């Protein structure tokens, strides 16, 4: 679903990403772990085509992002770290706006919006202004929005920031179930170890380099750690 090859990026002389390569497989979550300043935001900016890098290659669902940006972005759903819903519009209006940007006809858009809101248990709030929703509900709406155009790859940039514990747990469970059900690839940036499940794939990014990549068991074995917390510290503190 996502193939990143030999990607580097620098801000002037400061190297933010240093020759990174990895793949995100369909049907499972790939968790991108890294401390602040590891290069996660830069990587997400490149995958969402906010920047282009002259070095390396990014493919989304087989489309080269540099050469076929529209086709590649059509296959991408994103939940940004910062809330990006328009607070003065209703849930329905926000989602219709997104559907319009993806070229969905109104009838089809409304059908999908209803389905998605029901699935995420927020359909009763569809006519409410986003401003009146709590953090958990807003996140659900953002997830519904990211899925509306049925992407092949879902990008989550620390989506649990600002959520209380039950909302965070519900969201983590839901996304994991969704990845399995829909055969969608999920790349999930986080620095919260407890969001990782045993079935996930793992990438540890630190100082612009990939320090570990594989299943949770692989990473534990490679670092000789008893748990992921210790493994993560071993990878990010040793460097």
């Amino acid at each position, binding site marked *: 679903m996502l193939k990143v090859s030999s990607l580097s990026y620098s*801000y*002037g002389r*400061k190297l*933010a990403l240093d020759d990174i390569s990895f793949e995100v497989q369909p049907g499972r979550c790939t968790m991108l772990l890294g401390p602040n300043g590891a290069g996660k*935001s*830069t990587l*997400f*900016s490149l995958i*969402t*085509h*906010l*920047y*282009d890098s*002259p070095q390396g290659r990014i493919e989304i669902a087989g489309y080269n992002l*540099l050469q076929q*940006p*529209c*086709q*590649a*972005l*059509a296959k*991408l759903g*994103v939940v*940004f*770290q*910062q*809330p*990006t*819903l*328009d607070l*003065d*519009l209703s849930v329905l*209006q926000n989602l*219709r*706006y*997104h*559907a*319009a*940007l*993806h*070229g*969905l*006809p109104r009838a089809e858009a409304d059908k999908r919006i209803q389905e998605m809101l029901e699935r995420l248990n927020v359909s009763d709030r569809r006519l409410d202004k986003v401003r009146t929703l709590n953090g958990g509900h807003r996140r659900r709406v953002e997830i519904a929005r990211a899925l509306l155009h049925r992407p092949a790859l879902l990008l989550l940039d620390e989506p649990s920031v600002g959520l209380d514990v039950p909302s965070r747990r519900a969201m983590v469970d839901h996304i994991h179930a969704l990845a399995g059900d829909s055969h969608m690839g999920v790349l999930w940036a986080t620095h919260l170890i407890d969001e990782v499940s045993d079935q996930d794939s793992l990438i540890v990014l630190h100082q612009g380099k990939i320090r570990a990549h594989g299943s949770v068991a692989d990473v534990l074995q490679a670092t000789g750690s008893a748990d992921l917390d210790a493994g993560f510290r071993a990878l990010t503190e040793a460097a």
Partner: protein
Amino acid sequence: MTLSVFHYLRALNGIVGRELFRFVHQRERFISALVRPLLWLFVFAAGFRSTLGIAIIPPYETYILYEVYITPGLLGMIQLFNGMQSSLSMVYDREMGSMRTLLVSPLPRWFLLTAKLLAGTLVSILQAYAFLAVAWGYGIQAEPAGYLSVFPALLLSGLMLGALGLLLSSVIKQLENFAGVMNFVIFPLFFLSTALYPLWKLQESSELLYLLARYNPFSAAIELIRFALYGRLNVEAGAVVLATLMMLMASAIYGYNPSKGFMQRKGNANI
């Protein structure tokens, strides 16, 4: 996969519809956009009426009141402020991250920026017509056909000033820098133009001021509007506005280009 015309149309409809909806529901923005030029009209122009005599200059065929003279300038002011307001909100959106939802859409960036520009321009035209309606009630009335013929002029000048805002939003790094825009962009553009005084009046006081106003593209926008209100086309002004619009738009698109633009140099991944 090729993007269909319908995709473009639906996206355009979505972007324009959202902007208009937001505008209609932001009553404070509407009122403040209207109060500023009305204050100029009712207070400033009324005060200066007796001191500033306006000779007969095209497109006017008779002596006119000062209020009549500055009405096109105030329409330009509405559009200038609206362009800057759009720019301000784009910088804000970028700082807040919501600009990303637009830029991550599967459409060419030039199209997204043009659609955003068109949406902002339509809002400025609504404001301009609301101002004209109040001015009409105050006795500043053009021929009925003038209200139609001014539309394309407002569209073109609104696009030019919106493109200026778009370009500024691509080069301004932070919201705090916006105060500088007021001092270095809005005020010079407005005061060094034909908005408040005709060129011959400026020439009487200073040759330099005259030259600056003569070659200020904002003057061209105002003259285009002024002539259009009287059903006439000022070809030179139209050409200057069109050329400036194209130049500003090309620079703004360059500014937002993911591989070449100004955004890259900022080193800000939170855009």
